[in-house]
């Protein structure tokens, strides 16, 4: 049934129903908007009208939130909204010709809606399917392994307005591609094992993590479990797996010790906003090991005395929602969630899933919390930090998916066991998401300390020119650095491991990353908002053959400014891909240096492109020769 022409009454009914399900709670605006869009195809002024009345919040708030997230549409975008993943790995697998093919088939321009209002086709940031790309999202559901045949079939399905539910299931199949499993991906724990171990863990001699007041607020008397479990986490030397590597035990302890004002409580938040291009390990953990992740969250809740938890799942993983809700439901039935977990009086904890809506910056923990509260995903001013002033200004632990999974293992097997794996400052294992130029892309779990060369050999990479470790915000290393090791001592990583062989143009790699940062900058602070656009323009200038050594100096200057003045890590790292590739792959840039001195970015001939398109002319007379343009 066509829903785009629903009249206001029907829209109001949908808004009422959705808002009701979320208890008319304005902190759930992001979830409410998502469900309204899923039902209505877009968020119309009529829907916003109704929503502001139902929630009792100003329209500016709703429009401000809706306007922030890439996946929310306040203008019609068609009944089929197709977004091609545009990570560099999708580029290498040929996503752009496929997008052109689809646009040609459907008679629609990229970025626009077809004239019949049926379909729109556009690009989006990495969707986390780098090991099985090129990939796209259709109405936020992932379609993988695109090729010309599949594109033509999709065009037919769209033209014939076949509902998504009737599309071949094979399109939506997402493979785990686990290539090397270690303690996490190869674990044999059963649901509840870690919780029982935490409950039964007796305080050890000279307990370090004791804080009787704090855990008694959350849990009844007479339990050694929480403090003893926290001790094990600390002893394990577990560090956050989201990239920054903060010590998990210290974070949990700080949250546990944070004073509560009347009416306040503690929260556990799992950061599954896996937005760093080239990273897809959390997708697999949540597909195949969701119990372990939820168990880790529950262990954290037990340890710090939290009653509520959230899984913040990136919008690109919308297809996992039903699967995850089923597991939560089963865990409630098993008494592993809900009131009196495992029969412990007062051990209450439950988990809600919140979906993101296309905003990389929400992977930053304070931006994530803002988003959880139903706001624009702008990183907060810190201090204070989430451990004392997090969700709704209350003490909150935010950890990565992989961190919680590791915590569950530690609860069972103990901190000493875990600390013995890996290296001195990087305990345990790390799951790498390997993609790009290799025979066997997928997940590789290694004890920390593995050399890049080893990973390249295992994944079947040949003639490798460079590896981007930890995504665009990480580091790009060349062949002379392949003996470097994964770990906080040398190459810290959130997990991305993108391989580039010697046929790749590293300038284009960097340019793709720069476009990514420009698109994902939240726009809050001046240096990042304007600086990422200036950097993008500079890289495009080089791409268009107008580069000169002057531009290197400009890039360096922008980097200084973004590093020192930006509000959060996005701005701090936005120049990294360019600086790394200039330092290590300078010929890729020099090939583009046709000038020794400054050349303006403005190009007379290119400025006529719009006029050529409008007039349908492309003959010699419709062009201005380059020499002429430059002499003029």
């Amino acid at each position, binding site marked *: 049934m066509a829903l785009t022409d629903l009249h206001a009454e029907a829209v109001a009914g949908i808004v009422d129903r959705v808002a009701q399900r979320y208890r008319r709670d304005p902190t759930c605006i992001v979830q409410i908007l998502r469900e309204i869009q899923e039902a209505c195809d877009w968020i119309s002024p009529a829907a916003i009208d109704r929503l502001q009345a139902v929630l009792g919040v100003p*329209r500016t708030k709703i*429009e401000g939130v809706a306007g922030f997230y890439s996946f929310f549409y306040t203008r019609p975008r068609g009944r089929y909204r197709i977004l091609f993943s545009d990570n560099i790995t999708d580029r290498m697998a040929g996503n752009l010709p496929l997008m052109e093919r689809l646009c040609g088939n459907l008679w629609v321009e990229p970025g626009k809606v077809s004239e019949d209002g049926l379909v729109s086709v556009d690009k989006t940031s990495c969707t986390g399917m780098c090991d099985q790309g090129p990939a796209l999202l259709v109405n936020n559901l992932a379609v993988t392994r695109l090729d010309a045949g599949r594109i033509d079939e999709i065009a037919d399905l769209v033209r014939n307005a076949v509902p998504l539910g009737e599309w071949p299931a094979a399109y939506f199949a997402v493979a785990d591609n686990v290539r090397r499993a270690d303690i996490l991906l190869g674990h044999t724990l059963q649901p509840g094992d870690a919780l029982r171990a935490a409950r039964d863990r007796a305080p050890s001699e000279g307990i370090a993590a004791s804080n009787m007041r704090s855990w008694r607020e959350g849990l009844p008397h007479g339990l050694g479990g929480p403090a003893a479990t926290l001790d094990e986490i600390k002893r394990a030397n577990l560090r956050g797996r989201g990239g920054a590597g903060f010590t998990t035990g210290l974070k949990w302890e700080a949250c546990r010790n944070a004073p509560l004002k009347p009416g306040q409580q503690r929260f556990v938040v799992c950061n599954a906003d896996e937005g760093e291009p080239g990273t897809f390990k959390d997708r697999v953990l949540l597909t195949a090991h969701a119990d372990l992740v939820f168990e880790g969250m529950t262990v954290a809740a037990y340890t710090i005395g939290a009653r509520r938890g959230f899984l913040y799942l990136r919008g690109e993983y919308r297809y996992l929602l039903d699967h995850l809700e089923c597991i939560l439901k089963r865990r409630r039935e098993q008494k592993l969630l809900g009131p009196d977990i495992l029969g412990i009086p007062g051990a209450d904890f439950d988990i809600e899933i919140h979906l993101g809506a296309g905003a990389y910056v929400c992977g930053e923990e304070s931006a994530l919390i803002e988003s959880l509260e139903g706001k624009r995903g702008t990183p907060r001013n810190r201090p204070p930090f989430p451990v004392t002033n997090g969700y709704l200004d209350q003490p909150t632990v935010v950890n990565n998916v992989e961190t919680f999974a590791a915590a569950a293992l530690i609860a069972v097997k103990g901190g000493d066991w875990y600390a013995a794996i890996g290296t001195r400052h990087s305990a345990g294992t790390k799951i790498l998401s390997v993609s790009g130029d290799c025979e066997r892309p997928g997940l590789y779990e290694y004890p920390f300390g593995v050399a890049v060369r080893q990973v390249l050999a295992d994944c079947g990479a040949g003639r490798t020119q460079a590896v981007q470790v930890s995504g665009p915000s990480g580091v790009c290393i060349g062949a002379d650095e392949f003996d470097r090791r994964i770990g906080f001592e040398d190459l810290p990583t959130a997990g991305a491991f993108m391989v580039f062989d010697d046929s790749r143009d590293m300038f284009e790699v960097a340019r793709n990353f720069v476009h990514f940062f420009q698109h994902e900058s939240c726009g809050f*602070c*001046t240096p990042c*908002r304007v600086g990422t656009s*200036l950097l993008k*323009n500079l890289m495009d200038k080089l791409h268009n053959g107008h580069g000169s050594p002057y531009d290197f100096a400009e890039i360096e200057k922008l980097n200084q400014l973004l590093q*020192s*003045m930006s509000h959060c890590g996005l701005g701090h790292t936005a120049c990294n891909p360019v600086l790394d590739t200039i330092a290590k792959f300078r010929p890729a840039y020099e090939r583009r240096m046709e000038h020794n001195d400054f050349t303006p970015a403005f190009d007379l001939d290119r400025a006529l492109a719009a006029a050529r398109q409008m007039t349908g002319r492309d003959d010699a007379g419709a062009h201005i020769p380059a020499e002429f343009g430059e002499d003029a």
Partner: protein
Amino acid sequence: MTQTFTLDGKAIPFADGQTIIQAALAAGVFIPHLCYHPEFKPHGSCKLCTVKVNGRQTASCTMRAAAGMQVESNTEEINAERRALTQMLFVEGNHFCPSCEKSGDCQLQATAYHLGMMSPHFDHFFPNRPVDASHPELLLDFNRCILCSLCVRASRDVDGKNVFALSGRGIKTHLIVNAKSGRLADTDIALGDKAVQVCPVGVILRKRTGFAVPIGERTYDKAPIAETVAQEGT
């Protein structure tokens, strides 16, 4: 005994809870700023007020003062970065000072003079931002918006109205008004609202009062912004 921190070698007294910029302005020391306003909750977005605290850069409008802090502000390095930020704001929007009613009263312009900005340096973005002239008494010229959110905070926190908000993301971030039509005329804004008075640039203007004060006799024509603000602070 009064607590102090050191700002460019000078001891600055502060009270508990005061931010660096609050204490500095109270002591008559100017730190450039655009999104900061003494009457509103700090925002920390323009980053003009960035200083070095014990060697680390941070916005002075959100950082609480602490005893013994070593703060650097008026250094060539930091001022060069502030100048670049100001240039960024100039090229991001459409700022044509000679034809702007706010010229001489504009904090962006005055701050650019203060920092010795001689050119915009970067390529202009020339964004397309239509003007909203729907309201009988007020004009909104979005071309000059620097996204400081002062009108947002004033309307929400003082006027209790939420007339303004920021929408969009990244370079597409923009100011919106609280009306289904998107027009100021359809909001409940009133001339007496605080939100009408706080714009540091020339976005929110009263109609039919233009050029009442001749150019040359305006706020920052008489004294540079550093002196004007420092005098207000003390």
